[in-house]
């Protein structure tokens, strides 16, 4: 099968790969580049576990073709901690027990990050809306909502 070149910036570093035409961004990241933080829970756009950030926007990487991401800037959960210091969202997920089995967590954190990047002080309803594409079967969602609100508060205190 003909290979297609793809080149993008992932968590601050340049990546270049040849993939089969039609390869999803999820498979390219996981199988080719070796970033397994996005998870495949359904491969059909229904669970949100594969969520990543492409040029500032939340994307389901299982429904995004790798070849459409040429030149893009991509962020995944594995790239959030800086110099070993957890991102406020990661800290909050840890502190509020927002992660049980952990399979939904990287996708949840991506969805939450896009929300806070655009809306630093979201209401509870805005948090619920922002996470509505991400399924969690363990926590019952409440600790996750609390984690996002906690991280938003921590951010605004740091900014003040």
């Amino acid at each position: 099968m003909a290979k297609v070149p793809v080149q993008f910036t992932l968590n601050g570093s340049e990546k270049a790969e040849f993939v089969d035409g039609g390869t999803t961004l999820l498979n390219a990241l996981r199988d080719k580049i070796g970033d397994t933080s996005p998870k495949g829970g359904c491969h059909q756009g229904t669970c949100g576990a594969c969520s990543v950030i492409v040029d500032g926007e939340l994307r389901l990487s299982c429904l995004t073709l790798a070849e459409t991401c040429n030149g893009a800037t991509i962020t995944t959960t594995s790239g959030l901690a800086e110099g070993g210091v957890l991102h406020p969202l990661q800290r909050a997920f840890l502190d509020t027990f927002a992660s049980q089995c952990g399979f939904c967590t990287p996708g949840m954190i991506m969805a939450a990050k896009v929300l806070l990047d655009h809306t630093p002080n979201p209401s509870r309803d805005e948090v619920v809306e922002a996470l509505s594409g991400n399924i969690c079967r363990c926590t019952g969602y409440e600790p996750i909502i609390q984690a996002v609100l906690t991280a938003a508060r921590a951010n605004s205190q740091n900014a003040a």
Partner: protein
Amino acid sequence: MELRKSYFADVRKDDLHEIGQARPRSDSPGHVTGKTTFFADRNFPGMLHLKMVRSPHHHARIRSIDTSEAEKHPGVVKVLTAKDVPHNVYTILILIQIGPEDETVLADGKVRWKGEAVVAVLAETERAAQEAAAKVKVDYEVLPAVFDMEEALKPGAPIVNEYHGQNYYLYDSGECRKVRFGDVEAGFAEADHVLEQSYQSSPIEHAPTETTGCVVAPEGNDRFTCYTNTQAMFFTLDNTSIILQMPGSKLHFVGGTVGGGFGGKVDVIVEPIAILGAKLTGRPVCFIYSREEEMQISSPRAAEKVVIKDGVMKDGRIVARKVTGYTDAGAYSRHSPYGAQKGAGHYPGPYTIPNVWIDTYCVYTNRTPSSAMRGFGVTIGDFALEVQMDKLARLIAMDPLEFRFINAYRDGDMKAHRQPTEGAALIECMQEAARAANWPVAEKYMAMSSYKKGA
């Protein structure tokens, strides 16, 4: 919280100072940084992908299987059928002597439920495996199927599973698990009211976010490392050893990281065939359920039917309880004979009743095999029992909580299955619940204790 009974006073001398404290989970740092390694995060060079050809019929005889076109498909490395599996007929609980072996790893001559695995295709890519699987030709002769437990138990119903010979699990106690305590008919005769109701549930899928699967790597010395999300590591290892007729020392299982299980990952389904594939090809093998397979193929909680007949006095005492429980195992046993047996022990509920009669049946139908899920065997029973308790309270115009205080079991009471009650806490739980919910309960009940003396 002030309790009428002090728990563990005689057991624990140390301070339980961790209780009530939030302590970080040891696995959370891995989860929030995306570093936790789930089985599917393992990738090996040259890894093959396994896809199953599944039965489109609920019940059918297999006349023939033609894999020739699939074998010619580009990228296909191996196609497996029943004859490739060393010990193809197995049952999970054989490890604790619960037989007979009644399930095939790959269907042999017959399929008994829609979705049953028939042929396994191993190919270089997932796509090639999928395309080749679609080229396998299976010639079926469709047989009459039975989906309803009561229909399945009628004489003349199609036999679902010949390894059993009848559509119920044969316990050493006969066609069902039985509990007999006191004289239930005398209890009904003396009762002021008798109420019989039946309760039914549908199968429930666990729907974990991570689907069932495993990745197998041959170690080059005839040993195999299996990265799996099973919830039953040693059950899986031992059953794989039986199915593949391979000593356990050749199998190395790595797991414990499960992306949601809830009981749905205790059946030995993906590992034996993936390890066999790795053995026969000498290549790493990955077998992951698609979301559709997770929802349609993996074992759900069993459908159940519970018929409860109670005799109750105007003063609130339940004097007789008769329960008939049916557990729909689907086409194969898996953990269901155990689930139905648990129900038999559980059914009187946490109540002391002098006359009890219980029959629980594990029934075979042409439905997806059911298995474990969070309290299986008792969860649906509890739903039925507690709805029944509310109905009984209404029948005698009594407060539903006070009605439960009257019947609550207490330390020293003999349970219907002849185990004396120890460590009862129902009364204290109900007292605390009444306080928390501001539910008015007469003072005499709030003064009760699970200790019989001094109450």
